[in-house]
């Protein structure tokens, strides 16, 4: 991150986004491939598995939906579980408003379609670090981050479908997603408040694990956000 996007055209912001999105390619390859493998294994056709990756593009909820379908849960519960996992994206959507709220509607719609964990976290980190970015640059940067990620997500789903059961269990693909998310969170821990929020999230999520899929996570997220904000206010008070 040596170049500044402050006074350069949107094209540079887009390219900076592409560069910052590239590392995620390494993580998404196993994750998307795994979805293809698991979906085929569960009995979805090629078109159905691809439909998931193109229309939903939300890994965790795709897996959640699949899990509920394999368990033959009632249709409303399949929907509820998968959408509950995605509710965090409403929070992502809200936190982008101060940065992208002034962009044209079609751009906001496009950003919304592409708003998932990796694009959101990468972009917000950049926006926070560079408050001088213009709205056009911010949109360009966001689309840049999504550029290497999104097509690969779809392509690797297809590879997973075709590779099917050829991938041995010994590869432990199941644990790539947890590693991916942990690696994303670790560099974001910047203060005592962040540690407190993460701890609250873990404790509440583990405590309410028996609740229907996604419900415990929502409670954990709410508790963690409040914990983080309260601890942040406390620690600000100490410094005065």
């Amino acid at each position: 991150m040596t170049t500044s996007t402050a006074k350069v055209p949107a094209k540079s912001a887009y390219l900076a986004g592409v560069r910052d999105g590239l590392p995620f390619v390494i993580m998404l390859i196993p994750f998307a491939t795994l979805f293809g493998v698991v979906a085929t294994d569960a009995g979805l056709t090629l078109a159905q598995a691809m439909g998931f990756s193109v229309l939903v593009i939300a890994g965790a909820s795709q897996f959640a939906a699949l899990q509920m379908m394999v368990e033959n849960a009632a249709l409303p519960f399949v929907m509820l579980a998968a959408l509950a996992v995605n509710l965090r994206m409403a929070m992502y959507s809200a936190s982008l408003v101060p940065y992208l709220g002034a962009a044209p509607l079609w751009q906001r719609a496009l950003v919304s379609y592409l708003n998932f964990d990796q694009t959101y976290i990468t972009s917000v980190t950049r926006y926070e670090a560079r408050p001088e970015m213009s709205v056009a640059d911010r949109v360009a940067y966001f689309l840049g981050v999504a550029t290497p990620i999104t097509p690969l997500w779809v392509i690797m789903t297809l590879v997973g479908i075709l590779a099917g059961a050829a991938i041995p269990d010994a590869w432990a693909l199941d644990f790539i997603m947890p590693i991916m998310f942990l690696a994303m969170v670790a560099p974001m821990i910047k203060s005592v408040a962040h540690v407190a929020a993460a701890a609250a999230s873990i404790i509440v999520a583990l405590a309410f694990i028996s609740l229907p899929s996604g419900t415990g996570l929502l409670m954990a997220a709410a508790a963690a956000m409040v914990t983080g904000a309260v601890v942040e206010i406390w620690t600000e008070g100490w410094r005065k």
Partner: protein
Amino acid sequence: MNFSTAEIWFIIAALGAGTFLIRFSFLGLIGDRPMPPIVLRLLRFTPVAVLPGMVAPLVVWPAATGGQPDLVRLLAAGATLAIGFWTRSALWGIGGGVATLYAGLAATAWL
């Protein structure tokens, strides 16, 4: 699974539409209006609030071991967090975590 083709396509389409609406909710409908400071403060913690809770059960009770806690996966998770924290880099965290996971699995198979 017992779902008909039509039901499966309904799930895919409805999930796609529902997920888009969730993502579009604030950014599309609320737009440029200023948000109260307390809301902004809460929202800053969103990723740190959501991701640890999502991962914790997968780390403590991995599905691959039938929900039994697994030393190798716990070590890999710890290595990912520690390396990601000290290097401030997601990529190094992933590299360290995956290396620990495979080294641990290889050691387990060999012992």
